[in-house]
């Protein structure tokens, strides 16, 4: 589904459909996880990206398959957008031996090296310097890859974010920092964490890094920003920082809705639901005549099957054997 190196997405023909499909697929997977989660068979924390699909879809569509990406605790969308293996992800969330980490990681530790998704970890901001190191190695080894570091806006509060951006700026590394600003860190609003009188993108600008703010719910806007950013980074002009404004619909962790508990208002939530990246984009494509109903329905049907197959396989799959507990503590040299 993603572009190949020979057929880069730079050719914008069909991009709208691809963006829509990527978002829809992510949404459908996340909804399926939400639906199954109460069965208590996915026994690990899950952080869903419903409402934030445009960021992953738009950014990943601007990348080459051999480009790299890393993420944090909320990584399903990025993994899927980058082309990560769906059954391996679902099995991993189920803690199964067939999972992408053989069950050792769970939802917060996804990896698919074939897809260039190098990993995600739940310590906020910890993959940002690692992603910077990927870009550094590519620069040292004269590869023309780009690395994307996906992060939440709370990650910009961690010092290591700044240390990474400084290093990337110093060495003009081929990295794009993609910050999904969804206004919250768990239940904590921006007002208790960051000064009201400056924007997140200004932090990176302070480091001398090209920085943009964009509508994180508009996949085409994201795609345009990301294409320019990837081109900039790939051409050796240095890192780019993108702040994408968006909103998570469901609770921070888990499958439910939690506006009622009081950390944010129902009105705010409803206003953002109005800005549903998928519905709005569909509407736009319909208006411009770019929406192919049949193709889209067929796509959804295919994904439906893909998802139910993935869940069925994950549920069927064996748990890792207790005897394998000590495997992989060290790599054999």
């Amino acid at each position, binding site marked *: 589904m993603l572009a190949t190196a020979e057929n880069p997405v730079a050719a914008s023909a069909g991009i709208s459909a691809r963006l829509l499909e990527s978002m829809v697929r992510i949404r459908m997977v996340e909804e399926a996880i939400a639906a199954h989660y109460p069965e208590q068979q996915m026994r690990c924390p899950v952080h869903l990206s419903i409402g934030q699909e445009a960021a992953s879809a738009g950014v990943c569509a601007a990348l080459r398959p051999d480009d790299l990406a890393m993420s944090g605790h909320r990584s399903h969308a990025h993994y899927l957008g980058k082309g990560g293996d769906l059954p391996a992800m679902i099995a991993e969330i189920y803690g199964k031996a067939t999972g992408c980490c053989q069950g050792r990681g769970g939802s917060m530790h996804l990896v698919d090296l074939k897809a260039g998704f190098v990993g995600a970890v739940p310590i906020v901001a910890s993959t940002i310097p690692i992603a910077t190191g990927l870009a550094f190695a590519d620069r040292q080894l004269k590869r023309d890859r780009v690395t994307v570091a996906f992060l939440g806006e709370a990650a910009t509060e961690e010092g290591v974010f700044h240390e990474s951006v400084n290093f990337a700026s110093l060495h003009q590394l081929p990295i794009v920092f993609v910050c999904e600003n969804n206004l919250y860190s768990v239940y904590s609003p921006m007002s*208790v964490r960051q000064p009201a009188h400056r924007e997140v993108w200004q932090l990176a600008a302070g480091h001398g890094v090209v920085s943009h703010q964009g509508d994180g719910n508009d996949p085409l806007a994201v795609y345009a920003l990301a294409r320019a950013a990837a081109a900039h980074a790939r051409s050796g002009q240095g890192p780019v920082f993108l702040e994408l404004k968006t909103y998570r619909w469901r609770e921070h962790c888990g499958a439910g809705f939690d506006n009622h508990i009081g950390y944010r208002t129902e009105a705010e939530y409803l206003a953002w639901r109005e800005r549903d990246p998928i519905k709005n984009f569909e509407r736009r494509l319909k208006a411009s005549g770019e929406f192919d109903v049949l193709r889209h329905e067929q796509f959804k049907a295919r994904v439906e099957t893909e998802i139910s197959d993935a869940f069925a396989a994950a549920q069927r799959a064996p748990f890792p054997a207790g005897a394998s507990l000590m495997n992989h503590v060290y790599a054999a040299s």
Partner: protein
Amino acid sequence: MKPASRELTYAAAIREGFAVALERDPRVLLMGLGVPDPKGFFGTTTDLQKQFGADRVMDMPCAENGMSGVMLGAALNGLRPVLNHQRLDFAMLSMDPICTQAAKWSYMFGGTMKMPVVFRMILGRGWGQGPQHSQCLHSWFAHIPGLKVVMPTTPHDAKGLLIAAIEDDNPVVFIEHRWLHHIKGEVPAGHYTVPIGPARLARAGSDVTIVAFSYMVLEALEAAEKLAEHGIDAEVIDVRSLRPLDQSLLLASVAKTGRLVVADTGHSTAGMAAEIIAIASESAFGSLKAAPRRVCFPECPTPTSPTLSAEFYPRAGHIVAAVRTTLQRPPHDDDLLVPAGAELDKPNPAFTGPF
């Protein structure tokens, strides 16, 4: 006059300890990611912000290192702050302010300054907390002179040690195990302290000494019950305070039983269990009748999958098996059996996820 006692959960006891401290001393300040949020930090801070105001019960940026330093400055300049971490793993970003700064300021500035700060950390376990949300590094802190390190097991001790920690003029690392929060016990109302240092005799016995702390005391007591069924009378010591460490209770017990098993909720290599065995070997060598034993995490990161984490965490049965070994009794196949239907990855029976 002893204050009135009620049954409270460990989480409620912590919350009450905070309320007492905030009430008594206007300098006390609570800081931490999510401290004022609706989930109330596993119920340990619920409504404290409403009660004491947003100036004293505060959220913060996601910046553990910097905020730890900020707490040190606040402590030097008239406040008595408590920095709360939902996971010990997050505090690992702040080893410099905790261990290189806070622990050393009294000493290296020749006693000119006091550092009344509490670093509160919760040990994660279960429901896929996995490799990065369940590290148990109490032994790291215990390794550092200048820190005090407490790990209460009972609601009574949780409240009393929390208040003692807040009232202490030194940096105290206060570590809770997530699986203790729902445990109920007698808790006196109002203000009281449990002194930092003395261990607690959790169960008297004569055949073997089991030393444990935090959640592992519960497993040790369960092990003692099982051992009693086999005619083995185990003494259980709840260490409570890792630094300073109460050697006398420990050594007196080993002198009596001659056998030692240490149950730690962490890794073994250069950990607290090694320390306790070293102390017994150095100072009660003549009393020891058999090789002491450790019950610790296997030497691998915490896996996420429920089957692997069930294999990873030592339970009462592991302690029973270790006791049999040190008593030179034959092993029992069923010590490590898991009862059918047991869910070993839940913090408490009511838990349904997600965190």
